[in-house]
């Protein structure tokens, strides 16, 4: 063994005697933070079916709101149509002429 190898061995032996530094237990709050981050990172992505179901729900809600907001306009349009039918119907006019 060369002198350098011998001195290296002595150096390594001395280094081995150094005590490991610091406390090995987890610092306060570390495990809580890591667990929260882990589940946040690993939250499963919503499936296509679930997304489609949510979209259908939102679409139904929007349709109901639209009907609610335009209710008077819709019923008014039906009433106008019946009035027009009563006055402009050629059959009723012919019947009226005959009577």
């Amino acid at each position, binding site marked *: 063994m060369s002198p350098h190898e011998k001195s290296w061995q002595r150096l390594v032996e001395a*280094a081995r005697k150094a005590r490991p530094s*610091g406390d*090995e237990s987890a610092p306060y709050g570390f495990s809580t933070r890591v667990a*929260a981050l*882990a589940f946040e990172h690993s939250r499963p992505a919503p499936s296509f079916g679930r997304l489609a179901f949510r979209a259908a729900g939102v679409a139904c809600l929007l349709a109901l709101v639209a009907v609610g907001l335009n209710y008077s306009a819709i019923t008014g349009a039906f009433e106008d149509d019946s009035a027009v039918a009563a006055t402009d119907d050629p059959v009723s006019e012919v019947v009226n002429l005959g009577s």
Partner: protein
Amino acid sequence: MPDDQSFDLAGCLDRVRKRDQIAARELVEHLHPLVIRIVRAHLPRRVSEEDLAQDIFLKMFTRIDQYQGSVPFTHWVSRIAVTTCIDQLRAQKRRPELRWADLSERETDVLDSVITNENDVAPDDALAARELVGKLLDQLKPEDRLVIQYLDLEQKSVAEISQLTGWNQTLVKVRAFRARRKLQRFYRDLIEKEKP
């Protein structure tokens, strides 16, 4: 402690897979000593040990469904820890050449002592010796550094290193041989070329 027999690791893993946050916290606390020892042994410069430990645990949770039980869970976690440390060391790329002027007064005293004296280094100088060895190891590639750290400083067997790293035993021996040769060259250069 990872060796604690009272800890129900299998039960805890089952609960973690069901996304039980309390079980995840227990697992982190149980494995922290193991992970922090690996981090401290291979800590890259300018990287916080807590940040590195957190990265290791997050990787562990991300891959926990891949754990099949073919190796002990602590070995599986050790491999993640070792790989993460090596990746961090690789990211730093630059491995500074060690010069005599970079050594502290205590470290030069230790080096003088091991070169000139046949006697052991004083126990008070053990920490300086460890820091000096660490500086010499910093010049090696991360994988080489790890092998020497485990073999020479922690006195682990080739089989143990193989289990901890996932490298086969032949690879460990080859890396150890090459790493020792490089380290001897760095050490010789420091003493012959740099020593005033």
